[in-house]
Every structure is written in structure tokens, then in C-alpha cells.
């Protein structure tokens, strides 16, 4: 494990990375069906070739202000522990290799977002890459049932 291969994408001015093995595909934004009573960060569900998968709006998840959808907006379809879900990102930047030694543990005071989402921070020259902890993105606060 000398190096990791990552897919990187951006939200606003921040750049994020996920392990390439967990990224199943990258698609344009299809029609998204809203799901009532779902957690706010779940934007809805989409049809991925006959399977219905949830889509997480990462801006909402990370407490960032919402932005308009652009031509570059994409959904990165991830597979974590055999569960498939998508994350909406502003744009996908590149696929790169990162030396394991260039990865540092998450800073105690994270970059304005919940540090449990962060697995580490990668440095590529001057660029800072936030490596995401995918288990936390969907898994943690499961839908708690509430009656209206």
C-alpha cells in the first residue's frame, strides 16, 4: 500500500478524494425523485439502469451553501459495503495517485465540517485534498422514524 488511487471532485473551493475502488461510475444528473421524510441530505432517488439508488447532496451533508446545478455537476456512484448510493458533486476533477505518506490524519478542528466524514488529508504540492470516510456519509445517522 505504497500509494492510493483516488477520484477527486470539488464542491465550491474544496477538493475531495474517494478511493477509486469504491467509485463505481460517474454520471450526469438524471431526474431525481424526492423522497418525503428522508434525511435532508438525501436529495432523492434515481434510476441507475433499473436499480433505485439514493443520492446524497454533499453540500447539504457538509453544511455548505447550496449552489445552482451546472453542466459540470455530476453524481459519483459509490459502493460501500455492497450498498450503492450516489453523491452529487459540483464537478469531477481527475483521477490521481497519492503516496500513502502524503496522507495526514484529519485535523482536530476540521475544515468547517464534521470531522467524522474525513479520513485524512492528502497533500499534492500546494493542493489539499480531503479524503472522505465513506462509511459515515450514509451509514451514521440512519433515518429515524418520526410521525408527522
Amino acid at each position, binding site marked *: 500500500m505504497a500509494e492510493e488511487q483516488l477520484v477527486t471532485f470539488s464542491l465550491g473551493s474544496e477538493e475531495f478524494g474517494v478511493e477509486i475502488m469504491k467509485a463505481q461510475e460517474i454520471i450526469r444528473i*438524471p*431526474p431525481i*425523485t*424526492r*423522497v*418525503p*421524510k*428522508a434525511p435532508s441530505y*438525501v436529495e*432523492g*432517488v*434515481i*434510476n441507475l*439502469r*433499473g*436499480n*433505485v*439508488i*439514493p443520492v446524497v447532496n454533499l453540500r447539504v451533508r457538509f453544511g455548505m451553501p447550496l449552489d445552482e446545478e451546472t453542466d459540470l455537476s455530476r453524481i459519483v456512484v459509490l*459502493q460501500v459495503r*455492497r*450498498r*450503492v*448510493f450516489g453523491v452529487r458533486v459540483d464537478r469531477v476533477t481527475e483521477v490521481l495517485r497519492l503516496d500513502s505518506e502524503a496522507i495526514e490524519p484529519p485535523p482536530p478542528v476540521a475544515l468547517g465540517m464534521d470531522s467524522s466524514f474525513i479520513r485524512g488529508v492528502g497533500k499534492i504540492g500546494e493542493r489539499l485534498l480531503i479524503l472522505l470516510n465513506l462509511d459515515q456519509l*450514509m451509514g451514521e445517522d*440512519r*433515518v429515524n*422514524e*418520526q*410521525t*408527522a
Partner: protein
Amino acid sequence: MSQGDKNNTGIDLEDFLEFFLLDSQEQVEKLGSGLLQLERDGENIALVNELFRSAHSLKGASGTMGFTPIVELTHAAEDLLDKLRQGKLLVTNEIIDVLLAVTDKVKLMLANVEQRVDITEEYSPLKDLMNVIVETGATAQPEFSVSKTAEVRKRVPTGVDFALTPVEWGIMDEALISGKAVYQIEVLFAPNTLMKAVRAVMVIQRLEPLGRVVKILPSIEELEADTAERFHLLYITIEPPEEIRADVLEVSEISEVRIKHYSQSDSFASNKDFSFPGAKINEPKKSVMNQGDKADNEHSQQSFTAPAAADSQENGANQVHTIRVDTVRMDNLINLVGEMVITRTRLVKIGNDLKANNDSDPLVNGLNETNVYLGRLMSDLQESVMRLRMVPVGTVFSRYPRLVRDFCRKTGKKIELVVKGEETELDKTVIEMIGDPLTHIIRNSVDHGIELPEERIAAGKPEVGTITLDAYHEGNHIAITVSDNGAGLDIEKIYKKGLEKGLIGEREEMSEKDIANLIFLPGFSTADKITDISGRGVGMDVVKKALNNLGGLIDIKTKKGEGTSFIIRLPLTLAIIQALLVEVGKEIYAVPLSSVIETLLVQTSEIKTVGGLPMVQLRGNTLPLISLKEKFDLHDSDKTQDEVFVVVVGLGDKVIGLVVDELQGQQEIVIKTLGEYLNGLPGIAGATILGDGKVTLILDIGSLIQDILIN
């Protein structure tokens, strides 16, 4: 399409192990339910035979896989069953207890196997106990000498220990199952025979073409050195003993051949010697008569024609031909059919669009006709595929007699469990999920419903209480009822408890039925004392929730002193349904047509609010309404409407109206899960993909109804 396919790289042994586990678990289940039946019907020899067979194939399979503890345990059980089969022991509660304990133990062992760990379960006390029962039972029979049973317990009638390996046991058991006979052949050399090993090899060479020599004792090497006068063979064949004997005698310097029917157990009949002194050839029948106990003649005769063969024939007559298929593959198939249904709806749409433009084009008409035909084929295909997933509900019901029995033994209550409608079929997923809620309800009936015998007699009821478990079709649903003729729910107590816990208001008017339904609220338990049967804090609310998740509903009927019935209604199938599409606030939702009663166009002025709930009068009844727009926080459509559509939906006898903007028509939809992340959202049962490829959510009518009726 499914993720499971990627993992198909397991080695063969793993595959066998899966089959072994499936098969063994099935046999254990069979044993378990059979034993309970036997307890009631101790004379039923056919049943004992069946149990014996189950124990036997369990042993055989475990032997092949090399799970010695299971082999030893089931072997002892087999011995015991064999005693019952021969009437040498009578069926008693104690014996049933022991045998049930064996099934439990084997289940635990199988669990070990499943977890791929060594079998650590301690089983020798149980085994010894069975052996003691077998032995004491046998000594009680005068015609059976103690020494003989002792020999028998060494598995090989003459006391010759072949020291078989599990693999060899497996070979023999397989042979027995496939209807071949296993003989123990004792070959005596003529006095002063030279080169005994060569003779032995010649004997084996004679036998091999007609069967299989499993083991020779002593071994050829030992025979070479040894001065043995005889040797023993274990031989599998379908040839009759007299043929074998004649064959072996053709080898020179063999003075005598004794053939015994080797059986997997100490069957009395199969223990008989078939001895053929060198010179004269007896008819086998005669030799049996000579040696056998006259009373047992018929029995031995029967065994002589290879018991296993007879067994397997018997099996064949009422065998259902089945094939086991991995559920992943089946789900794949169902998924594909689902995709085809979706694609066909697209075709239909294209056809219709074309028709609107070129009405007279014969090609277009041809397309549409073909579409209609395709539709018919598709629904046939769908139905066939769905039927693959249907499993008789009896597979779940079979576990409850044991539950009730154990409880009765523990508490002294007398309860008869009547099981009906086992053949009613339900979707496999539903079957898998229904077990636990049903267990809970039955426990409840057993613990709180049925009274102690004294109380029952005092109340002028029959001493034995009855719990009836029934399953039947009811429209597009399957109903499962659990009814007892016990004390009935204590409505007053429930009411008080409800007040106490603040679940209901002081002055609330409630019908008995409403009060009874309180037990489905979280945290409600009226049990005064906590028993290990029920009342551990997890209550009927869990049951209700589990059933709701399946798209089902639960209802209670109770009458003081006469009993309680729980009625569960479940959807027939989970995968493809007819649905009514409705539009609300620019979103489209699918309402399962099976729950739709009618649709109405209602003037907004007719909607009155009663106690915070919107209602409308419908033919003299009040119909509570749910505004999906409010329920789901949807955007308002731009114009205010004078009229709204109301979809009247019902489940059981509960009816509500859903207020929607538009009705979009009826369509066949394929139910897809929302996935683990979004499962269990209130009001949403799942999703589907429409002809245009967009995802549409399916409403969970059951949860919507229960939601409004409880609040």
C-alpha cells in the same frame, strides 16, 4: 444487475457445504415436527419410519462431509428410533424429549458448521442417555440377549470392528440411500489353505464387478503374514446374497461363506445370519426360517430384500420433484422480467403515440396488436416467475407446535395447537419475515390468552385450550389468524394502563376495539409478571411494525372469557403489482390498486375538519382524509382548486381517503426496494420505475392508515 453474482468464485467444497447445510437443516426440521406428531400418535409406524429415514440421511450426509459428532449423535438417535420402529420400546414423553434435544443439538452443530468453525457442542451425555434407553429397552425383551445388544451397539452385528473412516461410513450410507444393500461377508478358508492373501484377492476380484468392496478385515497385507482362518468383507451390491455366496464359493479353498445383512443400525431382522454351509445350498427363505424367530419371520423377510431399497421406492411414490436454486439467481430472473415489463410499457406508449399520428398505417396497427399479444405473454411469464417465489406458509407454521408443546411442558397449561391452511402460498420474502412476529403473537396467546387448566375448568371450559393458526386467501391479500379460546383481553386493564401511561386522554370515548388496539403502541405490556415466554418489554408494537414493513396490517378481535383472535393481512406478492398513479404537488406516486376501493371527486367545501382531522361524508359515513401534500411537505400546485380527487383506500375494515391533485391512470409496476438506507420511511413502501425511466415512489397504505387511526 445484482451484486451477488460477483462472488461466485467459491471452491467446490463450499458448494457442497451449502447443499449439506440446506439438506441437513431440512432433515432436522422434519425430525422436529415429526417427533411432535409422534408424541400424539405413538403407534404410527409409518411416521417412525420416516423419522428414521430423516435421521439416517442426516447421518449419511454428515458422514460424507466428515462431521463425526453429528454422525455419532444421529446414529444413537437412529438406534433409538429403530427400537421404536420395532415396537421394542414404546413412545414416551421422555423419549420424545431426548430426541427433541438431539434435534436441538444437531441444529447447534449445524450452526457451527455454517460459521465454518469446529463443532464444539458437547454431545456425549445425550448420546450415552440414548444408548442407555436403547439398552434397557432391549434387555426388557426376553428374546434379545444382553450380549447381542452390546454387540449391536458397536454398529457391526458380529462385533467385528471394521474401524470405518467417516468417508467409508459415507459410502455405505450413500449406498443404503440409493437402494443398494450392504452385506457383511465372512469368508472361511478351507483348512490348511496356502496363500490366503491370494485367495482373498481372488474373492475381491469376483465381487468387484457386481458391487463395491468397502473394507476387508484383516487387510490383505495382514492376511499374507497371518494364519487367519477367515476374513470379513463389507460389500455393497444389488445382487441377492445367494448370488454373492455362489460367486465367492467358486474360488477354490473357500470352505464357507456367511453373509449378513449389514444395516446401519441394529435392526433385529437385518441381524439375522444368512449362513450357507459349503456343500448344500439352502433357499434363502428357508435359512431365514431356520434361524429366525418365527414371530419375526415376516419382518425379516421384508428386510432381506434390502430395507433401504424398499424405503427409497416408498419415497419415490410421493416424492415432489424439486430443484434448489440460489435465490440470487431467482431474484435476477425476476428483476429481468421486471425490466421487460417496464420496457413493454414503453413500447405501448410508442405504439399509442404513433397511432395518434398515423391512425391508418397498417404497420402501426400491427405493432399495437403485437404489443397486446406481448402483454398477454408478459403477464403469463410474470405469473410463472412470481410463482417461483411462492412458498407454502406451512414452512413457517411447522415451528410452532414445538413452541407450544415446550411451553405446555414447562407451565402445566394444556394447549392444543390446530394448524390450518398450511398449503396457502406466500412470497418467500414475506415467509422469511413473518416468522418472528407470528412467534410473538403465539407466545402471547399461550402466555396471556390460554388459562391454566384449573381456571379453565372453573370457568366451565374444556380443560385443554385451543390455539388455531390459520392461513387463507382474502381478495388480493393473505390472511393469517391466530385465535385462542382463552380468557380474552382484559379491556378494563388495558384502558387503565393506557391512562396510566398517558397513551389516552381521561375523557376519551373509546370503543372496545380501539382500546384493544392500544396494545400495539410502543412500550405497552399488561403482563403483571415477566415470564420467559412473553412480556420482555418488547411488545406488540414490534410485531405491528414488522408487519407494516411487509405491507401488512394486524387487527384484534377479543371477547372476554371467550378468547382473542389476531388477524394479519399480508400482500400476496411483493414484486409486481397493479397500481394507480396519482399526481400530488408535481410529484407522482403509485397507490397499490389492491388497496384502492374507489376514487371520488370532492368539492373542497365539503371537507370538514373534525378534531384536527379533515373528513368528508361518504354515503352517510365519515371518511377521514389525508392530504398527501401536507403529509409529504410538497409544494403547492399553483392554482387553488375547488375540487380535489380523493382516492379511497382500505385495508381490512379500515378505510381512509387520500387527497390528490390528479389521477394519472392505472399501470403495472415493478416494486423495487429503496435500499437499506431509506427503508422504513413512514408512508413509503418502495419505488418503481415508470416507462419514462423516472423513479416513482409507492405509497404504503398500511402505514398511512395506521398512522391516521392511531393519532
